[in-house]
């Protein structure tokens, strides 16, 4: 339908030029043409021109004006599809996708076959994953433009994404049949074939996929991918000979890629460890410079053969001075006998290198001496080795020996810091990292590590300062790191704030991380058109799938867990209003003291006012800076989000609902982690939602039925049911009766707990939960429960810093009732076990430790 207010030919030509300018991002010119139309008194209120002017202004970052013009345009011409379309585009740029879709639909009412609007609608549908809607729109586009390539591919893809492989393949085939007559095989054609193959592969018809690929081998230009898929398909079809051939070819291309070795083992049907070791030895001769044939057999060899192999592997690494040698070998430490062999060898190296400069004393006469640095790397390895085995004193002894040998090697300082971290002293750890950082201030890795250790030691200011060495000048480091989506930093900040009890600040950081994830999801928008045009369809589908599970990423998990913990805490202990607290105290004050207090308050208020004025000024500057940047940027589509204010976040009225917002992505995307369901239980326990508690417990139970934390959840759930029996809805009771069998095995709660304590009596982690419940169920049993968790000598297999810290936390948390003497005793006995760990020291000594910046007397830790 034409506009209700058509322009005469001259103006119409100008209007077309505005459109063209918009497409080609020549916004300034676009505005010029708009002005030419609007300055004619007959057309000052021409709707479509006004709308286009607004849209162009939006691209220049002038958002407020943009909305004004677009809305005015629309009001003047409500029956114009252009105006509605433009309004939709504006909403879209503000990420208001639902609103934008409504606008597009209105636009289509006036012009139902407009290609551009349909195309824009389809983009929003795929972005929102309205796959059925996407399919319908793509269908319309195909019917309207069957001669366009994108119409066919888009329609086929909509079926693929819906899992309807047959329809997807039908369309792709029809399309390719029509096309093939051209016969020029370019890269895009090759990509399309690979995409077609991906769809066949996913449909499960491997034979057909293999045939498809073999027939078109010469048309596919990405030879690496081609061979990898051919290898994979042959392997899955158990055509081992052919698979072997492909993987051998691939290995020749890149003998460093470990997957090729694993696949080749599969293709050769090797299962016995000896055969696999032999296989690697043969390949080692074939590719003498490659690492995998030397490293990988160590995973399979045992006994003397392992010793011979690891001996030569270690010697080579130590001779060359390969810093990550220990990290490289750490994965074989799951086998105790291998750990022993490695330790023996290294001790032998130490002695021999010290006495004759060789790796073995038996080799006095043969060959040249090893380089002097070999001993250093042996010390370095041993320090990490003992650290891994939690033998802190030995680890420190060796790292100090290494430092004495070469006091300038940065890695040594990092390792020393790490040893202290593992020993439970983040302050000392941080000090050593700071030293390391000072040795090379241009090394970004060390810089970041140092910042992380500082955050672990709750030194937020210092960490930001260290980071500022690498952030952009003119903005605060904190802000720049947020802009750069530096999530590890923000998450560590959140955790530090959480430890310090600054809950609002912690939540702010968690929300920032959450926003990064939203932003990444929004960033995919432009690729819907781009990938279709470039025909990189396999990568495109992978991108879509990645975005679907984005919040399953460990970075999100960590931040979400922190946020949930904080919100749960805030539910139990809401932040108190400072003013009311003070008012309460005032009543008990003498008049003179009251006056003093008032004076103090006034001063404090003035100071706060000044500060907030300064902050406001800084904010204005920042805004100006952002504005300037946006105007420079052609695409200024960062939506203005609400500012995150720590005080407001900490005073959330509905902490549990807020927690659920962080929880839900985890329930969908991290359902394999039991912690997800345990956190869910805690939230719903506080909300008293029985069935959702049941849901969390069932899911957790499926993952790990004997998890200690799950046990205490089960006991509390059982108690909850007993106490609320009378008030529960009939239907709910029925559901629970039918489902609780799996969880409780029809035992009463006391028996359940006793059996758990008996069965897992050798694990402190399990006993902690059991004992907690013992007290929870019957407070008369306090001394029994306390006895179980505080007498930790020889009874348990898992007495380590982490479990003991958890015990202490529980004791302090009041899970066992009042028990101050026991806490003190427990801390004393832990201090003996873990002399470095600060958690078990009395608070006064920690303060001392924090302020003590003089490095410890080196003699205390000297190697001899």
């Amino acid at each position: 339908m034409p506009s209700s207010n058509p322009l005469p030919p001259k103006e119409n030509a100008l209007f077309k030029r505005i459109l063209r300018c918009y497409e080609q991002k020549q916004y300034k010119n676009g505005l010029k043409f708009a002005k030419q139309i609007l300055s004619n008194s007959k057309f000052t209120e021409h709707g479509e021109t006004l709308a286009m002017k607004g849209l162009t202004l939006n691209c220049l970052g002038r958002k407020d004006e943009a909305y004004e013009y677009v809305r005015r345009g629309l009001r003047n011409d409500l029956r114009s599809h252009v105006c509605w379309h433009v309004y939709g585009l504006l909403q879209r740029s503000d990420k208001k996708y639902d609103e934008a879709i409504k606008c597009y639909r209105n636009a289509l009412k006036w012009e139902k076959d407009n290609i551009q609007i349909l195309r824009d609608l389809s983009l929003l549908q795929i972005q929102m994953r309205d796959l059925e809607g996407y399919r319908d729109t793509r269908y319309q586009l195909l019917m309207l433009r069957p001669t366009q390539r994108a119409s066919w591919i888009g329609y086929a893809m909509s079926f693929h994404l819906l899992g309807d492989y047959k329809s997807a393949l039908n369309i792709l085939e029809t399309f390719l049949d029509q096309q093939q007559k051209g016969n020029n095989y370019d890269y895009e054609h090759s990509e399309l074939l690979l995409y077609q193959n991906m769809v066949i592969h996913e449909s499960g018809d491997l034979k057909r996929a293999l045939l498809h690929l073999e027939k078109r081998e010469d048309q596919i230009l990405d030879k690496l991918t081609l061979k990898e898929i051919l290898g994979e398909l042959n392997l899955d079809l158990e055509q081992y000979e052919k698979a072997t051939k492909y993987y051998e070819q691939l290995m020749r291309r890149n003998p460093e890629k470990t997957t090729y070795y694993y696949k080749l083992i599969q293709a050769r049907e090797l299962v016995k460890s000896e055969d696999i070791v032999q296989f690697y030895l043969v390949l080692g001769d074939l590719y003498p410079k490659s690492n995998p044939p030397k490293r990988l057999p160590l995973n399979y060899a045992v006994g003397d053969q392992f010793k011979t192999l690891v001996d030569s592997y270690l010697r080579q690494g130590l001779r060359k001075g390969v810093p990550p040698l220990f990290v490289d070998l750490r994965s074989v430490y799951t086998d105790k006998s291998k750990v022993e062999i490695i330790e023996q060898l290294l001790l032998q190296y130490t002695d021999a290198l010290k006495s004759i400069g060789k790796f073995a004393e038996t080799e006095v006469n043969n060959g040249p001496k090893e380089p002097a640095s070999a001993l250093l790397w042996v010390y370095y390895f041993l320090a990490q080795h003992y650290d891994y085995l939690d033998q802190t004193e030995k680890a420190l002894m060796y790292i100090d020996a290494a430092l004495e040998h070469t006091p300038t090697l940065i890695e040594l300082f990092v390792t020393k810091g790490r040893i202290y971290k593992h020993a439970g002293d983040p302050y000392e750890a941080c000090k050593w990292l700071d030293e390391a950082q000072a040795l090379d201030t241009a090394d970004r890795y060390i810089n970041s590590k140092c910042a992380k250790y500082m955050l672990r030691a709750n030194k937020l200011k210092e960490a930001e300062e260290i980071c500022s060495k690498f952030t952009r000048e003119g903005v605060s480091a904190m802000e720049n790191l947020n802009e750069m989506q530096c999530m590890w930093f923000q998450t560590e900040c959140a955790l530090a704030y959480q430890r310090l009890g600054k809950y609002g600040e912690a939540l702010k950081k968690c929300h920032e991380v959450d926003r990064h994830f939203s932003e990444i999801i929004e960033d995919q928008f432009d690729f819907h058109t781009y990938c279709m045009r470039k025909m990189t369809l396999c990568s495109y589908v992978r991108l879509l799938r990645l975005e679907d599970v984005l919040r399953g990423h460990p970075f999100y998990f960590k931040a979400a867990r922190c946020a949930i913990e904080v919100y749960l805490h805030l539910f139990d202990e809401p932040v108190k209003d400072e003013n009311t607290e003070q008012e309460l105290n005032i009543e008990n004050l003498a008049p003179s003291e009251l006056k003093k207090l008032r004076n103090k308050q006034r001063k404090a208020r003035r100071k706060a006012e000044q500060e907030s004025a300064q902050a406001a000024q800084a904010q204005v500057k920042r805004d100006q800076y952002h504005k300037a940047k946006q105007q420079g940027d052609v695409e200024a589509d960062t939506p203005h989000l609400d500012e995150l204010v720590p005080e407001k976040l900490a005073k959330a009225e509905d902490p549990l609902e807020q927690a659920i917002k962080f929880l839900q992505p985890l329930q969908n995307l991290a359902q394999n982690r039991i912690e997800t369901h345990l956190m869910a239980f805690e939230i719903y326990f506080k909300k008293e939602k029985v069935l959702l508690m049941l849901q969390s417990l069932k899911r957790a139970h499926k993952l790990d039925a004997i998890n200690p934390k799950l046990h205490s959840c089960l006991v509390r759930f059982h108690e909850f049911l007993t106490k609320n029996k009378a008030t529960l809805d009939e239907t709910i009771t029925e559901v629970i009766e039918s489902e609780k069998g799996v969880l409780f095995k029809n035992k009463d709660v006391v028996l359940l707990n006793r059996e758990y304590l008996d069965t897992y009596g050798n694990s402190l982690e399990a006993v902690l939960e059991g004992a907690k419940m013992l007290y929870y169920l019957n407070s008369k049993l306090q001394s029994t429960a306390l006895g179980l968790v505080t007498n930790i000598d020889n009874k348990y297999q898992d007495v380590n810093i982490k479990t003991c810290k958890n015990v202490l936390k529980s004791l302090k948390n009041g899970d066992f009732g009042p028990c101050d003497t026991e806490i003190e005793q427990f801390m004393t006995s832990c201090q003996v076990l873990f002399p470095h760990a600060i958690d078990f020291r009395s608070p006064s000594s920690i303060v001392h430790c924090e302020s003590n910046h003089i490095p410890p007397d080196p003699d205390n830790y000297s190697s001899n």
Partner: protein
Amino acid sequence: MSSEQVVNGGSEDTDERSQKKSAKHDCGAADLEKVTDYAEEKEISTQDFSGAISLIGDQRNKQAAEKIAREKELLKVLIKKEDVDLIVREMEISRIKAERTLREHHGNVVKALIALTN
């Protein structure tokens, strides 16, 4: 970042590669900028598509009809409002999802709830 990888992994030609090196710092931004460039859709040599098109149309109508039949079947199931209310309240899910689950379990609220707690 995923976005950049996609660009770099795409079929940029070698000219662009060399340009990229010269503009050290802004190359990522410039590449990203290209992503939003406007491009005309490529037309393919006009063939006789009408046969294929009508085939696709038929297929589509058939599928749509099947879907409507399925939905109708579901709509026939009688459900009670208070059951839906209970599900919405207890499971904290949307009304639409609650109704659908209840219908899929033939209106049996206990079974629907058990399924939802799985």
